[in-house]
């Protein structure tokens, strides 16, 4: 096994092109577990730790936030909680403080586990993943086409994830996760909702409820048609129930050690209702305070 330590992004892209089997290493919270347990012996480890730009975020000219792939969860919580509240909430549920100091959204995207906590808010918030290769240059991949299978993503063998882009929240965003304890838990299933009042629509994201993280598109269409954006009337029971049903229908979960498919479907419906309820209550308060 080789240990590659590129000093610059260009060197990293060159190394990934030379050794496509090289596994990018940042926080190590996924990769090192596999190496410690001898389930993976990659040709090389590509340590991205020296590339400081990956740990920066900025507000781009178009107003979107561009967040480096290596910005750890701890900093997303403290530095981006106001702009990306759904992602910050999800980040708070990742592992422990030690894990949140190291783990990053870039790592979550690279691993592409259906249970990764950052995926549902990235989907609900229409994130775009910036990938790059020495030969192909920069490629912008919308989150909802990024996940291609269980622990598989749309990256080409010579590509690395450089950043993700997301618009700052213009409405309330919530994340919810079911697990068997408060800390250090892999989601049994999770759900994110983001209200986009200017566009009169809502985004959703399901985690650990299908082979890939995915949006509940029928549920989103239903909300776009039914939500009373101008009057901000309270949500009715039937509307919430229908939203929960449509969210659950978007799931195609499996039975496994963490939960049954039936339980996951039920939990997705419950989390969908609750997160939408919380988000809509916040929205109503904002509308009332602006009136």
């Amino acid at each position, binding site marked *: *096994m*080789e*240990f590659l*330590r590129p000093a610059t992004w260009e060197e990293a892209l060159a190394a990934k092109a030379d050794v496509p089997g090289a596994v990018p*290493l940042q*926080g*190590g*919270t996924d990769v*090192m*577990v596999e*190496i*410690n*347990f001898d389930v993976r*012996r990659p040709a*090389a*480890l590509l*340590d991205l*730790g020296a590339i400081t730009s990956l740990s920066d975020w900025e507000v781009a000219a178009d107003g979107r936030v561009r967040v480096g792939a290596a910005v750890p969860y*701890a900093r997303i919580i403290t530095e981006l909680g106001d702009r990306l509240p759904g992602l910050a909430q999800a980040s708070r549920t990742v*592992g*422990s*403080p*030690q*894990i949140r*100091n*190291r783990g990053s959204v870039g790592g979550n995207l690279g691993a592409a586990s259906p249970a990764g906590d950052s995926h549902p808010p990235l989907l609900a918030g229409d994130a775009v993943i910036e990938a790059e290769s020495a030969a192909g240059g920069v490629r912008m991949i919308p989150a909802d086409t990024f996940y291609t299978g269980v622990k598989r993503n749309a990256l080409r063998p010579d590509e690395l994830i450089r950043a993700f882009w997301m618009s700052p929240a213009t409405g309330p965003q919530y994340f919810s996760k079911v697990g068997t304890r*408060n*800390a*250090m838990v892999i989601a049994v299933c999770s759900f994110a909702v983001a209200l986009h009042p200017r566009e009169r629509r809502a985004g959703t994201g399901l985690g650990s409820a299908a082979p890939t993280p995915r949006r509940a598109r029928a549920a989103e269409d239903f909300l776009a048609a039914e939500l009373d954006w101008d009057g901000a009337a309270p949500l009715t029971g039937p509307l919430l129930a229908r939203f929960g049903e449509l969210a659950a229908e978007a799931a195609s979960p499996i039975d496994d050690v963490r939960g049954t498919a039936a339980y996951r479907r039920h939990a997705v419906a419950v989390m969908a209702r609750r997160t939408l309820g919380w988000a809509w209550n916040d929205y109503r308060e904002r509308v009332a305070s602006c009136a």
Partner: protein
Amino acid sequence: MRVNLTVNGRAETADGVWEGESLLYVLRERLGLPGSKNACEQGECGSCTVYLDGLPVCACLVAAGQAEGREVRTVEGLADGDRLDPVQEAFVECGAVQCGFCTPGLVVQAHDLLERVPEPSDPEIREALAGNLCRCTGYEKIMDAVRLAAARKAAR
């Protein structure tokens, strides 16, 4: 490969390091610092918690090569010579140490909490220590120890 790093203020060099080796292995087996414990090797138990450039991390999840040129502070580096850190002192006095396996990780994590939050609430203590497992104490004595250490540090 060779890894150069600073551990508890001292420049150290480890030779013959395997590329997939963890920082934890380097600390324990190559540098003779067995304070950080090797328990789960998957970041679940927190027993190997050390400071890496000032942030607490699980040493089992840091590749040795990633520590090149960095500063590591282990539980051995918290005491001032023979004088224990207030967190260490409080753990001993409160009976928060039983088999001792989880203790170094809990001490480092509690030390970091009190550096950032001098007077933590109980929920803050619980959240800070949520990644550290102890199978002996039931955590109540650990809570007592962190509260005592906070009070002593505040009184200084």
